C-alpha cells in the first residue's frame, strides 16, 4: 500500500504494462482513477476485454473513473460556449491558460477518489498514461512534478493507495524537460519497471527486456536497490516473461 510505481519505456511501447495494471487493480477490487491521455476509451476497453475485464461495467458500478484526455481536450477546444455555463472547469484547463498549473487535473483526481462511496472499495489507485504527453501540451516539468507530488500526498499518504505512472525516456534523448521529469520521478519511486528493446537488435521472439528495480534503499535499512532483468514477449492476450536468453524459441 502507498506505493509509487514508475513505468518507463525506452524507444519501445510499454503500454502493455499499463493495461496489465489496469486489469490487475480492477480485478483486485480497488477504485481506480485512470487518466488516459494518449488513447481513446475504446482502445483500453478492447484490450481489457481480452484480458478479462470489462471497463464499461467497471465504470458503471463506479469502480473506474476514466478521464479520456483526447475527448476532454476536444470539448475544451471546440465547445467554448458550454464551458462557461457548466461552471465546472475541465481537468485540462491548463491548456487554455498560459499559467501552467495542473491544479484542475489534481482536483479531478481528488474528487474522483474521495467521492462518497469510495470507501467501499479495497483501495485507491491512480493510473496515468502517460505523463510525457503533459509536457507536449505545454505544462512545465515543475508543474507536472507538483501535480505528482500532490497526488502522492493524497493517494499514497492519505488514502493509502497506489500510483502507477507511465513515462517515455531514452538515453540519447534531447528532450531535457522530459529527462528532468523522469529522473526526478525515478528518485521518488518505490518500484521502477523499465522497458526497453534488446541491445542486440530486433527479434521476433523476444520483444524486449524489462528491468525491475525495487527501491529498497528508500526504506533506509541500509540495503541496496534490487535489480532484476527479464525478457518478454507480447502475445495477443498475454505477456510471457522469462529469464534472459531463455526464450521459448531458444529452448
Amino acid at each position, binding site marked *: 500500500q502507498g506505493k509509487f510505481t514508475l513505468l518507463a519505456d525506452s524507444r519501445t511501447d510499454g503500454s502493455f504494462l499499463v493495461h496489465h495494471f489496469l486489469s490487475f487493480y480492477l480485478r483486485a477490487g480497488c477504485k481506480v482513477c485512470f487518466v488516459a491521455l494518449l488513447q481513446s476509451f475504446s482502445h483500453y476497453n478492447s484490450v481489457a476485454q481480452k484480458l478479462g475485464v470489462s471497463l464499461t461495467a467497471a465504470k458503471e458500478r463506479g469502480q473506474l473513473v476514466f478521464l479520456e484526455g483526447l475527448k476532454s481536450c476536444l470539448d475544451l477546444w471546440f465547445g467554448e460556449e458550454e464551458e462557461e455555463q457548466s461552471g465546472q472547469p475541465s481537468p485540462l484547463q491548463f491548456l487554455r491558460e498560459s499559467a501552467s498549473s495542473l491544479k484542475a487535473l489534481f482536483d479531478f483526481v481528488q474528487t474522483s477518489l474521495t467521492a462518497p462511496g469510495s470507501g467501499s472499495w479495497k483501495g485507491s489507485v491512480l493510473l496515468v498514461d502517460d505523463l510525457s504527453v503533459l509536457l507536449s501540451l505545454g505544462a512545465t516539468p515543475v508543474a507536472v512534478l507538483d501535480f505528482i507530488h500532490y497526488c502522492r500526498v493524497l493517494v499514497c499518504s492519505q488514502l493509502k493507495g497506489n500510483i502507477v505512472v507511465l513515462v517515455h525516456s531514452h538515453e540519447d534523448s534531447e528532450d531535457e524537460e522530459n529527462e528532468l521529469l523522469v529522473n526526478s520521478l525515478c528518485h521518488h519511486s518505490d518500484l521502477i519497471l523499465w522497458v526497453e528493446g534488446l541491445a542486440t537488435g530486433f527479434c*521476433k521472439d523476444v520483444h524486449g527486456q524489462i528491468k525491475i528495480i525495487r527501491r529498497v534503499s528508500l526504506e533506509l535499512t541500509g540495503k541496496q536497490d534490487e535489480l532484476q532483468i527479464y525478457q518478454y514477449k507480447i502475445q495477443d492476450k498475454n505477456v510471457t516473461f522469462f529469464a534472459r536468453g531463455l526464450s521459448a524459441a531458444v529452448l
Partner: protein
Amino acid sequence: VFTEEDKYGLYSNLLFKYFLAEGVVCGHDLFVASAKEHPDNILKELPAPLLDDAHRSELGEEATAAKSEDFQDAMKIAWRYQNLPKMGANPPTSTKFGHYYDVSKTMSPDLFKSIKWHGFYLPEELPLQPKKKVCNMNNAYARLLQSIQRIIYQEGFDGCDPQKKQKNILRIGLQSLGSMLWGDDICSSETPEDSHSFTKFLYVLRGLLRKSLSACIITVPAHLIQNKAIMERVTNLSDVVVGLESFIGSEKETNPLYKDYHGLVHVHQIPRLNSLICDVSDTKDLAFRLKRKLFTIERLHLPPDLSDTVSRTSKQDLADSAKLLSSGCGAMAMGKNHLDF
C-alpha cells in the same frame, strides 16, 4: 500517420499523393491542406490507378523476393492497406488491399466527380478572429483545426447524425506541417517562441481523428527542425511514423550497396491499437525506389558480394545505419550478420 520528409521532398510528396489517390479510388472523401501548393494542383497530380489485370500479372513476373505491406494506417477504424505494388513470387491473389498506381500518368478528372473533397490553402484562408484565439496556439494551426472540425461535423464523420445512411471515411492530408510556411518557427531556431504549438495541434488532431471516421497523413520536414525534443514528442503522439531518407545528394548515393535503390524507409513506429501487440514484420530494413512507372518499397537487399574489393568500411556503414532503425536491427536480408556476440 506521420512521414518525415526527405531532404528534397520528392519522395514524401509521392507518398502523400498515393494516400490521397487511394482515397479517391476507394470513394473516400478528401481533405487536403497545404501552405505551399494549392490543393487543386496537388489533386491534379495524383497518380493514375492501374485497373487492368494484364498489368498486374506483368508486375508479378518482375518480382524479386521482397516484402511489402509495411504501411499501416489505423486510426479509429483499424484497417491496413497497402497502396504499393506487392512484389511477391506468387501472384497477388491473397488479401489485397489497395490499388496500384502508375506514376507516369495523372489521374483523370472523372474519378474526382464521385468524391467530395475539401481544400485548405493557407494563403487563401482568413486569419482567425481574436475571440477564437484560444490556448496559445499558432494561428495557422488553429485555423486548420477549426476547418477540419467543421468538415467532420458538417459531413457527419463523427457519427453524431444517426440519419446518415452511408458511412464514409475522411482522408486528411496535411503537407509540410511545421515548416516556416505555416508560421511556425520550429524549423528556424532551436528555442522557438512557441514550442508547444505543433505538439498541441497534433494532440487535438489526434482527438479529432479518434472521434471520427478519418485517417490522416502528415508530412513534416524533419531535417529542418532544430529542436530534437519536439521530434521525439511528435513521435510519441503519432500512431505510425515513417521516415524517408533519400540518397540524393548524400554520400550513400554512390555506395555500391545501395545502387538499386533511391532511398531508405525507416519505420520508427507502428500502431498498437486495440490490442496488446502490433504486427511485427520480419525485417525492418526497407528501401524504396522510383522506377519510371512504379514506386516500390521492398526489403533492403545487399547485392551479391562477388568481388573481394568490397571494402569493410562500406559494410560497417551499413551496419551503423541499420542500428539507427527502431530498436536496432542488425540482420540484413541476405543473412550477413554483423552482430558480434
